[in-house]
């Protein structure tokens, strides 16, 4: 693989993860608008960093009737909170396939197989570019999940933040009240049910016209089409951006080579271990064949 062109900051140092999957107990599953947030108690894993993900599979009813789901599902962690006996991990889910349907239906007390936290997290702004004073977080749909923990972790460092979140419509929205209760979020929705009628990237484009845009970095997670607009806008304006991406993924720890994402320099990265957070300068497009809503690994 050719070397990545974007900066590989010092903060890339990984948290070591217990080898093997571990059984966690589901503690809660609640509605969050059109999505659900389920939580599990992780008794032995390290604290995740924003942008990292877990491979998840229900301990029971995972492929037992139809043979699917077979593989675990990759989920960015939305938040991790200290709890009695470990860490409570929170995940945002929308049921769009056999795996996400099963996870969305988890009940408190059920078992959840967990491997992680895995992958390269978001960088801190100062490691990405010099002279950076703030951050713009851009989330689309279910992709707002990793921005919640990122917002908290950057907030703890005193980084000034603006958060933009977009949804398709009322049915495909949720999680803002639950995951961003602390702070201001600017909303966009394609059907106009909340905030600006249009795309969240419209809001980003306006922000990037401002004088302070060159001193900000952009962190984004959402559907491939949204990420591609973010990538193109930031590239045009010379703004550093990190994108949390998704592709069909079998293992999550570099074993299967299934999650290939083409690199601008040629060749491919493995999104699970070289990502899932990718410097936008390293890729030519965020529109990777096989990723997105209709992908097989849901």
């Amino acid at each position: 693989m050719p070397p990545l062109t974007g900066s590989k900051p010092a903060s890339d140092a990984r948290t070591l993860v217990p080898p093997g999957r571990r059984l966690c107990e589901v503690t809660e599953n609640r509605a969050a608008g059109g999505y659900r947030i389920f939580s599990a108690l992780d008794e032995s894993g390290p604290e995740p960093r924003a942008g990292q993900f877990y491979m998840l599979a229900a301990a029971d009813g995972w492929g037992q009737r139809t043979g699917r789901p077979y593989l675990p599902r990759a989920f960015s962690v939305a938040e991790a909170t200290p709890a009695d006996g470990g860490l409570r991990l929170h995940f945002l889910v929308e049921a769009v396939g056999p795996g996400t349907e099963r996870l969305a239906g988890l009940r408190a007390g059920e078992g959840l197989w967990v491997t992680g936290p895995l992958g390269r997290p978001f960088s801190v702004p100062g490691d990405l570019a010099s002279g950076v004073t703030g951050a713009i977080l851009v989330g689309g749909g279910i992709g707002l999940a990793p921005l919640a923990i990122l917002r908290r972790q950057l907030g703890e460092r005193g980084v000034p933040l603006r958060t933009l979140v977009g949804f398709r419509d009322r049915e495909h929205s949720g999680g803002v009240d639950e995951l961003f209760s602390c702070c201001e979020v600017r909303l966009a929705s394609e059907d106009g049910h909340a905030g600006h009628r249009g795309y969240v990237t419209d809001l980003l484009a306006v922000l990037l016209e401002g004088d302070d845009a060159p001193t900000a970095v952009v962190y984004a997670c959402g559907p491939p089409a949204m990420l591609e607009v973010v990538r193109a806008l930031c590239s045009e304006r010379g703004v550093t951006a990190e994108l949390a991406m998704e592709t069909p993924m079998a293992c999550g720890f570099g074993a299967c080579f299934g999650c290939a994402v083409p690199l601008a320099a040629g060749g491919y990265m493995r999104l699970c271990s070289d990502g899932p957070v990718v410097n936008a300068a390293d890729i030519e497009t965020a529109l990777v064949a096989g990723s997105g809503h209709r992908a097989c690994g849901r």
Partner: protein
Amino acid sequence: MDLRVEIAGLHLDHPVINGSGTFDAIAARRAFGDALLAAFPFSMFVSKTITPEARAGNPPPRIFETPAGMINSIGLPNKGLEGFLAQDLPQLAELPVPLCVSVMATSHGEFARLVEAVAARDEVAALELNISCPNVESGLIVGEQAPETLSLLQTVRPITAKPLIVKLTPNVADPAAIARAAGEGGADAVSLVNTLKATAFAPGSTEPWLGAGRGGLSGPAIRPVALEQVRSVAASVSIPIIGMGGIESGADALDFLATGAAVVAVGTANFRDPLAGARVRAELEAALASAGLASPQDLGERIAASTST
């Protein structure tokens, strides 16, 4: 229980190894640290296949989930011989188990060059020949033709005394014929099965989902096919067999051992749990004990006794 096995002159602590291309020990160690070495799930590590020159692999998407399995068309991304020897081999040599390097080339000359360079390294205990590839000189898939397989073995066998394991493709009418050719050519063992040719459509269309158009099926979905192929090969050759295909539990592993495999490999199950191999090994030990057996050899002797009477 004494789980040690001997295969092709290799002394292994237990009979569970990994299938080539289903576990990247270097990437896994990056994620899990040295705790992985302490809990290393396999008694031998089989590398991802290396080719003479570096390969980027196939365009995405590369995987498709099926009922009880998956289709992959990864395309053998690897650093090439030079990159492997310089970058990967020193890291793989730190693993606590013997190393088997999987190699593939598209001509006898290139295969010979790979085998010679890899076998010369002290860190390498054995080589696996991935013969699910075309021979550009004949245009035929080596592993689908007994004469091609024999001819390749005749080329590479004289190069090294180290164990040569031939990885068989299941995509043939008579895998035992290919196994016999491998044995005749001097192979020390055969491993089977590789993936079954498979295809899948993108949701709601009749366009292929996979970037490369088609791929190979693995996982529990293929286990009965694999078990029958291992049985038919075991009935036909005297060299030892590494059996694999959808093994997920100790009971599955026992089935493969009972049908004639000396060693089993865990493949796709690794994707579900990085330590799946360790669980299979523990369950196998329990399964052997509950069958009243003291070791995998005991099982082999019981089978030999039952087939000779």
